[in-house]
């Protein structure tokens, strides 16, 4: 697959950074505004989906190989479990309890203890795994049409 026309390629290469930035914003401000890890992860996956539709699967395969994507997926789950278990091990002996008491005020970015880090882990997990699902489903279709 060579991808789409030059117009689609140019516009999507401009738009992809905006979509990635919007996804990172949704993840980082998840404890203040609507959104959070899942919504931001879906937006990150959709940016890679846009690149895959515009440039073709081989380009994305070079940019984000399947092994790296799978590793990011596992890393997100591991980070989330580590944040949960650190709350159990450190101060309070409670699963998922807050162990970061940062100097921050209400309604500011650094204000919610471990919740932003949980959001980052969930965003990584959701983005990587959702892109993996879409990529593998398109790979199925390719193999089917190649067999005929």
């Amino acid at each position: 697959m060579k991808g789409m026309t030059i117009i689609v390629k140019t516009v999507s290469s401009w738009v992809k950074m905006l979509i990635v930035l919007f996804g990172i914003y949704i993840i980082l401000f998840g404890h203040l505004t609507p959104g959070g890890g899942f919504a931001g992860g879906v937006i990150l996956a959709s940016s890679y989906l846009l690149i895959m539709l515009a440039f073709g699967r081989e380009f994305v395969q070079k940019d984000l190989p399947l092994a790296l994507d799978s590793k990011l997926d596992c890393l997100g789950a591991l980070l989330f479990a580590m944040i949960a278990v650190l709350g159990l091990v450190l101060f309070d002996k409670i699963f998922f309890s807050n162990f970061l008491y940062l100097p921050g005020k209400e309604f500011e970015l650094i204000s919610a203890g471990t919740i932003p880090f949980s959001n980052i882990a969930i965003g990584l997990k959701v983005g990587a795994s959702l892109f993996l699902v879409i990529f593998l489903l398109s790979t199925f279709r390719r193999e089917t049409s190649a067999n005929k």
Partner: protein
Amino acid sequence: MPYALCFLLFMLGLYCAVVKKNMVKIVIGIMVMEYAVNLFLVMLGFRVGGIAPIIDRAQYDPVMQQVAAGFVNNSVDPLPQALVLTSIVISLGSLALMISICVRTYEKYGTFDITQIRRLKG
């Protein structure tokens, strides 16, 4: 009345999942059923003229260092929304599973018709 419409939507999904022979249409019917249940759960927490259950500066009392008193009486119920968010994630996973089963079945049998797929042994 909205609950009856939710039930109608659920029944449409159930009809689609039970009667249709095409596998993709069955998947669509199952997803319509899931969305009907999600809509029902969100409407359980709805309140006419309510505000979004997000604590921002307008809902915060800086003198008392806590949420303003009217917030709980004005906002909609956030618990069904959190539940529905989890339900959406799980329905996404089950949708990916169902679609991949459909794709593999089409790869093996060359059809989506469930009456044509008969060699389901071993």
